[in-house]
């Protein structure tokens, strides 16, 4: 490895959609490593036995979710490298379902993340037994004072009340169902997966649901965007 005068902590923001919704976090890591290798970007590599470009993701995304706000961090070794050129370099090496929007110096630490904003589009699954009007059901569901759910944790299953953890939620009618915009805790201290909410609502209205969940924004304290 050659001498470098400076190292810049770079962060790209990218979207994950279409076929790439179905790539797991581990597979995403491999896809990104190959894209970095193919692009020829000069980034810092680990120095162990199995040297590889060092990349990190701030907040893993569940399989099946769409996102418009994923981030990946790496250390750019060549300080002459034009950060504005990085998105195009990577996009040429990525499947169409992953698009890099921007590349900037990393400002916040992933540990600063406190919440994430999701859009959840719900419709009655084609496999469901009967048609249900989801909007009124959702309105009454959201007015419940507590929603007890089973949550998988490192120490096993735990029952938690979801209601106070929903930081913000608005619902509107949409084609075939209901669209929610909701803010949930995310980051190192507490993480609530929106599918917990979907499962609880599905049980509440006794209907099998089909959901499309999109992560729209990642936030730090005071609702500031994570950049």
């Amino acid at each position, binding site marked *: 490895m050659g001498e470098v005068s400076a190292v810049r902590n770079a962060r790209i923001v990218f979207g994950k959609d279409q076929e790439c919704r179905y790539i*797991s976090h581990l597979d995403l890591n491999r896809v990104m490593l*190959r*894209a970095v290798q193919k692009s020829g970007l000069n980034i810092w590599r680990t120095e162990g036995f199995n040297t590889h470009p060092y990349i990190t993701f701030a907040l893993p995304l569940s399989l099946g979710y769409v996102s418009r706000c994923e981030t990946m961090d790496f250390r750019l070794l060549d300080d002459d490298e034009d950060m504005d050129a990085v998105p195009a370099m990577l996009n040429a090496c990525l*499947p169409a379902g992953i698009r890099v929007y921007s590349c900037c110096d990393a400002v916040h630490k992933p540990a600063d993340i406190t919440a994430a904003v999701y859009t959840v589009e719900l419709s009655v699954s084609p496999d469901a037994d009967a048609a249900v009007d989801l909007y009124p059901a959702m309105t009454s569901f959201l007015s419940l004072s507590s929603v007890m759910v089973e949550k998988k944790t490192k120490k096993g299953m735990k029952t938690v009340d979801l209601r106070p953890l929903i930081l913000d939620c608005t619902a509107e009618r949409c084609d075939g169902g209901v669209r929610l915009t909701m803010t949930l805790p995310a980051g190192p201290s507490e993480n609530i997966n929106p599918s917990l909410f979907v499962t609880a609502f599905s049980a509440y209205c006794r209907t099998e649901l089909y959901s499309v969940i999109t992560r729209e924004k990642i936030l730090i304290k005071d609702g500031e965007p994570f950049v």
Partner: protein
Amino acid sequence: MYPKEVEHFLMKVQKPGRYVGGELGAVVKDRSAVDTRFAFCFPDTYEVGMSHLGIKILYSQFNERDYLWCERVFAPWIDMEEQMRAHGVPLYALESGDALSAFDFIGFTLQYELSFTNMLNMLSLGGVPVLARDRHELFNIVVAGGPCACNPEPIADFVDIFFLGEGEEVDLEVIELYRRCRSEGVSKDEFLRRASHIRGVYVPALYDVSYHDDGTIAAVTPLCGAPERVEKRLMMNMDKSYYPSRFVVPNIEIIHDRAVEEIFRGCIRGCRFCQAGFLYRPVREKSVSVISDQCHTLCRNTGYDEVSLSSLSSSDYSDIVPMLTELSDWAERENVSLSLPSLRVDGFSDDILSRLTTVRKSGLTFAPEAGSQRLRDAINKNVTEDELIGTCSVAFAGGYSTVKLYFMIGLPTETMDDVADIANLAQKVVNTFYATENRARGKSVRVTASASSFVPKPFTPFQWEPQDTVEMLQDKQRHIKAHIHSRKISYSYHDSDTSFLEAVFARGDRKLCRAMLLAHERGIRFDSWGDCFSLSAWMKVFDDCGIDPAFYANRRRSFDEILPWDHLDYGITKEFLIRECRRAYESRTTPHCREQCAGCGAMRYGGGVCCEER
């Protein structure tokens, strides 16, 4: 692109990434801009099929033609199949999302016999009639190639055309013929008749098979002017043969997740159990500069940082050290590691090892195949115990402490002493570790002995041999176990039930088509997967069809019996195979192609190793 409706159930199945396409390098064309569509089907899961080199070569080659669009289709795992059937979604190709029934050609690659039932299941899931005689139009032409096409008789009723040998030229010739026939408006039968005159094309419907009362074949009679013998195709100049500059790079992890460079075809060795060693004769190498350029291009286009230098026996490449030197030149600079699978015990040297930049010392794998020298000579493995021990000693001194040894049981001429010698050889390797002065300190040695069951295959000197019965194989498995006394040795063996079924199909005839169809109707598929395989279900099928599977697996054939594949010609003569079989019974080895020509018949192709200076 996948059909929109699958989104509703994709999250209910394991690994939905298998079913969506959209990978880097996938070729998406405009339907209206092509006139012929080819569905390249691999009758196993995405991860297995995407690891196969043949599909990568032909996919890229076909898609270079403007008029042709080749897409990929894999067998959905049972959970996805259940969802697709429940929702009425037909099996679709990953590029367009169109059902199999929308394709001009539906092509299967047949890599192992236990995938035959998946082929039938994929056709029916795709809305295509499984029997060739139920497909009347000049459309949905079902073709198949790959090593199992060398005895296609057990699936002759389902496939319109088999491609024998290597597909690079013959596939396209048949596609061109199809386009001409379509514009002339000729029938499917006439197309098949014309196709049968292309070298490498076998149209099973144009051959009538009659049987003796004892079930053996009386005659195979060509009809409508089809040739008496069908000869395989092969590419004689590997440097000029098509090789892709890019692969479809999967988004999910597959079995062989790396760039692959084929360094030569064929094998000089002539191990008597190995079908590939005979089917792909003669050995034809690529030159060092072509290999280096192709590897380099592939890495740059895919982003892979590992290249596997693939062949049947990579250390037999004639310029191995110069090749590795040239590759390392750019590979090290670009952080690409090289791996050489299929190393022989006698091809393992410091010189080679030092150039393999893979730093992970995971372990070494060798295949002595038999425990005793006598049996290794009988199967013509041509590896001595001294070579194995010497190689292990070099490896142990170089820091390795794990060795995997692959063996086969049930080989012709095998005795129980030979079987016990498998355990003894593993013990000698353990002892070698402790006798190695500068072995890795503080580490314990681990020797894995793995025994699979021998399956006699067509076009090998053992094509006349009976397979051991399942009981005999299990006896031998226990015998090995009883002779292992060290905890440093771990022992595993391959399920003999699946080997039995493999043996039935490998040397089966057309009478098995009935069983295949019945098995399909009963929902049998994924026979090569332990989760799905059931020998008892298959035995019931055979019973209901009045077929004795032992007739195919456990019966010794005489040299003058007409074998189901005798009208197919892979370039090697029957006289040579008989000669080799006799030498096996005398425990006599045959020198490899570079030492001395064994007169197998492949000389007639006028190239490759047959024309090298010795």
